[in-house]
């Protein structure tokens, strides 16, 4: 065919593809392994603190045994949020992505030093922020709203973690760009593309928090300016704060679309729509932050309403995901002999801990997603804003949909990285189920407590004078959930540490890659080109945030002095 000869001519002009050697893989895998090891270590501390919080709510105060390491409930709560939601997630994601992109492209990292440097900057940032946090000099929770003032090194450290993750993203962009030069006219491989889209969304979103720290918090905490503007700081934080949740979620989506179907004999139902979903997240993730500020003074209702509209449109990529991913899994279950409308569900690969963990994570995400739509619903938000409903919600999203999926990924990725067998797969399976049950109970209890009683979030409820005896059955349900989670976390670390010291395995574990169900289906060009989506995302941010941010910056009043209130 004429087409073929053209492709050959293109290839003649294109640079020769760089082969992927064992050495290249070793470099990428060392970055991945180190990053994931640090993330999982942070999670160990973070989860322990979470268990203490849940038990405090039913009157079991463990804080007196950990003095002075965890000085107060809120000292512990700050570390719980930062270590779990920021450190575990970011370090795991960077590790997972570094492993995945070189396999997806079958090409070495374009600038391995850039990815090494990125990880190094992240580690330096983590250590810098750890000092004030561990010493109770930055107990400002992971949202660090001014005018509560932490030690400057805390802000600097968190910035460096973000900058390091940017460098990791730049490393992926250069690698994908090099691959495209070597393969003109070919579609970008799905995993490499979606990894890069996630990181591009992250670059755009983190501009908000970077601006907050560099222009407001650092000069102020260093004493260069006397006051700050709390509403502007909060607005810049939420510019970043909502896309942050998609930064947690999209890596799980990468696995659900592109890997998980292969783990149960399935195929990617529609590669076209899967790509569309990721582009839509790039387009819509950022201009939605005011839905975290519905109850804020100083922001007109019209702007809040605009963000409601954009947030609602974000439900569609998730509805699409629900269909496409389930259909992809169903293809596998039916191939394995599954029958009936629902009977096929039993044929899924439930015996495999990596598969089971991720499927259970999806089930919890159904509840997380529905709750999310509630939160985004403009005035309906008044019923739940800042109540304990909200932690109930995000423990079903980041702590279940993302984190339980990451555990599932670890159950193949840890053997792949260590070249050792997974230690005690039955325990790993029990880990997935106990996490599922624990989150289901805790999530249910916290949602109800917030909705019916208005119990506040991020509060030492076991010591609150206004707590009502009516709350006790729900706090107890939550504590039972927390107990399941404590058991689950113990199992997790037994499996992971056991794997680390397990005997070397001869069987090579490979990244599961789901083939498209319809491999002859072509991809329209607009689902493979960056320009319209990147420009669209920037334009939408300018429309949804530009005028309000301009006004807040124009009217900036640096009148709030800093406070240390812990």
């Amino acid at each position, binding site marked *: 065919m*004429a087409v073929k000869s053209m492709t050959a001519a293109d290839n003649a002009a294109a640079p020769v593809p760089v082969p992927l050697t064992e050495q290249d893989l070793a470099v990428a895998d060392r970055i991945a392994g180190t990053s994931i090891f640090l993330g999982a270590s942070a999670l160990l501390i973070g989860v322990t603190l979470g268990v203490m919080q849940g038990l405090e709510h039913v009157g079991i105060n463990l804080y007196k045994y950990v003095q002075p390491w965890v000085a107060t409930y809120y000292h512990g709560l700050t570390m719980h949020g930062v270590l779990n939601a920021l450190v575990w997630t970011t370090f795991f994601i960077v590790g997972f992505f570094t492993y995945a992109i070189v396999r997806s492209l079958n090409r070495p990292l374009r600038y391995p030093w850039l990815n090494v440097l990125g990880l190094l900057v992240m580690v330096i940032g983590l250590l810098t922020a750890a000092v004030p946090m561990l010493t109770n000099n930055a107990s400002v929770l992971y949202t660090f709203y001014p005018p509560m003032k932490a030690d400057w090194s805390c802000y600097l450290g968190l910035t460096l973690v973000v900058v390091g993750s940017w460098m990791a993203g730049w490393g992926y962009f250069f690698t994908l760009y090099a691959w495209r030069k070597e393969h003109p006219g070919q*579609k970008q491989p799905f995993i490499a593309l979606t990894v890069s889209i996630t990181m591009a969304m992250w670059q755009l979103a983190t501009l908000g928090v970077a601006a907050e720290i560099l222009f407001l918090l650092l000069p102020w905490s260093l004493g260069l300016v006397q006051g700050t503007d709390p509403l502007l700081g909060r607005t810049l934080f939420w510019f970043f704060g909502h896309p942050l949740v998609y930064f947690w979620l999209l890596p799980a989506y990468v696995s659900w679309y592109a890997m998980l179907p292969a783990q149960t004999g399935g195929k990617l139902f529609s590669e076209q729509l899967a790509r569309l979903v990721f582009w839509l997240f790039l387009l819509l993730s950022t201009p939605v932050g005011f839905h975290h500020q519905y109850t804020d003074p100083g922001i007109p209702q019209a702007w809040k309403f605009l963000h409601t509209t954009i947030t*609602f449109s974000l439900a569609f990529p998730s509805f699409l995901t629900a269909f496409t991913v389930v259909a992809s899994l169903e293809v596998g279950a039916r191939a394995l002999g599954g029958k009936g409308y629902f009977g096929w569900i039993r044929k899924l690969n439930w015996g495999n801990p990596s598969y089971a963990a991720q499927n259970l994570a999806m089930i919890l995400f159904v509840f997380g997603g529905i709750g999310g739509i509630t939160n985004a619903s403009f005035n309906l938000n008044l019923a739940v804003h800042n109540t304990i409903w909200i932690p109930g919600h995000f423990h079903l999203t980041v702590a279940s949909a993302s984190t339980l999926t990451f555990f599932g990924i670890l159950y193949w990725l840890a053997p792949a990285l260590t070249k050792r067998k997974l230690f005690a797969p039955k325990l790993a399976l029990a880990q997935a189920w106990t996490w599922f049950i624990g989150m289901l109970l805790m999530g249910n209890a916290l949602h109800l407590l917030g909705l019916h009683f208005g119990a506040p979030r991020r509060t030492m409820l076991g010591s609150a004078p206004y707590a009502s005896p009516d709350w006790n059955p729900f706090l107890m349900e939550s504590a039972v959930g927390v107990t399941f989670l404590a058991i689950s976390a113990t199992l997790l670390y037994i499996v992971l540490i056991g794997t680390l010291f397990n005997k070397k395995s001869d069987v090579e574990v490979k990244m599961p890659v789901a083939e498209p169900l319809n491999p002859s289906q072509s991809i329209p060009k607009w689902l493979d080109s960056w320009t319209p989506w990147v420009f669209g995302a920037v334009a939408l941010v300018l429309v949804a945030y530009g005028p309000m941010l301009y006004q807040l910056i124009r009217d900036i009043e640096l009148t709030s002095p800093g406070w240390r209130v812990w």
Partner: protein
Amino acid sequence: MSEQTNPIEDPVVEEAQDQSAPVEGGLSEDAHLHIDKYESMWLKIAFIIMGVFFLSVIVSSFAIGIQLPGAYARIDPTTVNDPGSPFAEPGLRELAPGKYEAYYRAQIWQFTPREIHVPLGAEVSFYVTSQDVMHGFKISDTNVNVMVIPGQVSTLKHTFDKPGEYKIICHEYCGQLHHTMYAQIFVDEPTEEVASGAQN
């Protein structure tokens, strides 16, 4: 462009020169988005669900009037207690029969006033600000839920139709004793004297 130079060029030839001519499973200019029959149905259902939600939001906020706080006024947090500031002597004021305004000052770790009494049916406009860090202001069993941000005055209105005790709870972390920060509103049923007085 090529159409102008050679308008009668054979379309098959043109396609062959196009780098993005359809390759099986590859990229294509003219490939269109294929949506499975059931997926399309599912999307329509999703569209209807979100549409109904969206309409409910519009009706409840603009027809029924359940409003969010908006931009009201700014204040220098260091001058909250200065003479002349409405927050220097916070409390309840009656504006007209049954209509009140209540000024609240939030600070670590208390609201001022700690306690107010209003008659059943009172319509109260709340004005809240903070003299230090961020706080929260949520009145139990009502739609009054607002952030208290230093430098801003938060405002919301509520009519108390049920008698009894309401709790105002600080729902934003504000430091070591955040969990002790609350205040009370008592909505009193009219005694007979007051009720007959109101009739006269």
